[in-house]
């Protein structure tokens, strides 16, 4: 039970500065976006109010929209189901086996700091066709697996997975760091106590680490979901959403619509959809973790 009962003025002093900035610069633009989503507007000239027409078209008569939604969730799914468990596993291993953890954890984190421009350029040279010096294809050829070579970033069915791999790789260290922090925060005496009860090693992880890491893991899940919804830079650098929209996700599709096709109203409708997805996701993630919390305790 919360014990601090304070005056309205105190609450205002604590909350208002932050809330105000946020409401003006993030929340208000969202509302404006929703309104813009109801306009037929090129972003520059006269606008026309068209009600829900943009949304209707988006949901029912846009052959590019749903595939972009699908790819966004594909990215989120891979991130949550593969990247996060791997990160957790590595974090556990590090905290069990490594004494001076700083260097290792920091090194794993390195790709996150580097600009997407670097990451994109690097992976392009990795994915390039063999004659252009592409690493993967050259290795495959050296292994005699010529038939396995692909033009990774330009075959429509493969390209999105090629990008997902990069995203997973780049942010692995990010999640390792977060989970590792979480594990470090588990008091040592709990493990001591468990040892007396005969639980050690991986058994201790199963019964102590996993349940106690849940809150931090939730942060990871949320962050990975945000990252997936906002994934934009990497796609723009690597494929620009192409070939022929085969790697467009929601954020890049919104950008292309608003600023290249100059359908700002329609782009805003897509942005509004992103907001709704975010709301739903927040609720779902919270419910899921509440249930998880209960199960463990």
């Amino acid at each position, binding site marked *: 039970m919360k014990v601090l009962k304070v005056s309205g003025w105190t609450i205002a002093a604590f909350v208002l500065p932050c809330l105000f900035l946020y409401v003006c610069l993030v929340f208000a633009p969202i509302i404006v976006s929703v309104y813009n989503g109801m306009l037929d507007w090129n972003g520059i000239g006269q606008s026309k109010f068209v009600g829900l027409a943009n949304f209707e078209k988006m949901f029912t008569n846009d052959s590019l929209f749903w595939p972009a939604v699908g790819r966004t969730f594909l990215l989120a799914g891979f991130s949550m189901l593969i990247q996060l468990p791997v990160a957790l596993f590595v974090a556990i*291993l590090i905290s069990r086996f490594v004494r001076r953890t700083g260097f290792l954890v920091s090194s794993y984190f390195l790709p996150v700091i580097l600009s997407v421009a670097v990451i994109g350029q690097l992976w392009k040279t990795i994915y390039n066709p063999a004659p252009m*010096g592409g690493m993967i294809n050259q290795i495959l050829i050296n292994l005699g697996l010529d038939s396995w070579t692909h033009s990774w970033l330009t075959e429509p069915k493969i390209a999105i997975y090629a990008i997902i791999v990069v995203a997973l790789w780049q942010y692995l260290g990010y999640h390792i760091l977060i989970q590792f922090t979480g594990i470090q925060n588990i008091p040592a005496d709990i493990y001591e106590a468990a040892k007396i009860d005969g639980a050690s090693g991986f058994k201790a992880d199963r019964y102590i680490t996993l349940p106690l890491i849940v809150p931090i893991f939730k942060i990871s899940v949320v962050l990975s979901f945000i990252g997936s919804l906002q994934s934009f830079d990497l796609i723009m650098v690597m494929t620009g959403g192409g070939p022929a929209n085969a790697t467009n996700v929601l954020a890049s599709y919104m950008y292309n619509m608003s600023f290249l096709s100059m359908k700002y109203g329609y782009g805003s409708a897509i942005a509004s959809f992103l907001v709704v997805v975010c709301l739903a996701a927040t609720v779902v993630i919270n419910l899921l973790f509440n249930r998880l919390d209960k199960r463990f305790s």
Partner: protein
Amino acid sequence: MSQSVTLKKEAPVVKVRNKRRVSVGKIAVFAFFGVLLVTQLYPLIWLLIYSLKTNEEILSGSFFSLPAVWQWSNYSAAIESGNYWKYLYNSGFVTIVTMVSIILLASLTAFAITRFRWKYGQVVMLIFLLGMMIPMQATLLPLMLIFKNIDILNTHLSLILPYIAFQTPIAVFILSGFMRTIPTEIEESAIVDGAGVFRIFGSIVLPVSIPPVMTVCILAFINIWNEYIMAATFISSEKLKTLPFGVYSFVSQYSVNYGAIGAFLVLGALPVVLIYFLLAEKITKGMVAGAVKG
């Protein structure tokens, strides 16, 4: 690379270990660490080599090749024409002001949401959660209008304000997640001692919250340091531009000087990497310190 990681079997937290499994299992584990280390460190090495190549060597794309002649001139080009020092100063200024503000504002809010007894705490939290996943690009036009009206276009304020605003949701989310777990006895005893709300916040809760604050710092930092779209849109004066401008200043309509971009990227990442590695130990230590109270 595994020399740097001492193979002592005593870990600080988990002291329990099955000794017979150690020999085989440990080798496997450290081999795994090693492989991971190579893949994660490789980009930096690649970038260093890249930054010393000529344009044509870079674009010919041989993956493992070294430059024929080491192009140190890329670095002088980056520093001189890329306005490195000025941009570095601007980036540093914007980033530091932003981070300090975020920490202060978000922790105040998180404290109020989690520790005060008031009706609207959850509502406020929900409002913040709503904005957590908004892509910046969607807000460019409205922000432009706002900044035009309050006349702060083309000042650092037009970067700092949206950077703060966009990072607060996740900061509030993380900090309140942590503060919720601090036992209420702390406040109870503080109140008995006659401490006011601000003292409870400043000298009890905030110090304890250093680990999540660190996390927030890192998250905010990586989002701000390389941010380009807003910077390019709101800043026009040469003397106010930030590091990402330098990177993109080498990309022009029909020619690109990739080597200099590489050099600039190295120079741009250098302070970050240095600071990060220097502070890494402190960050983890800070986290462990926080754990004792948690």
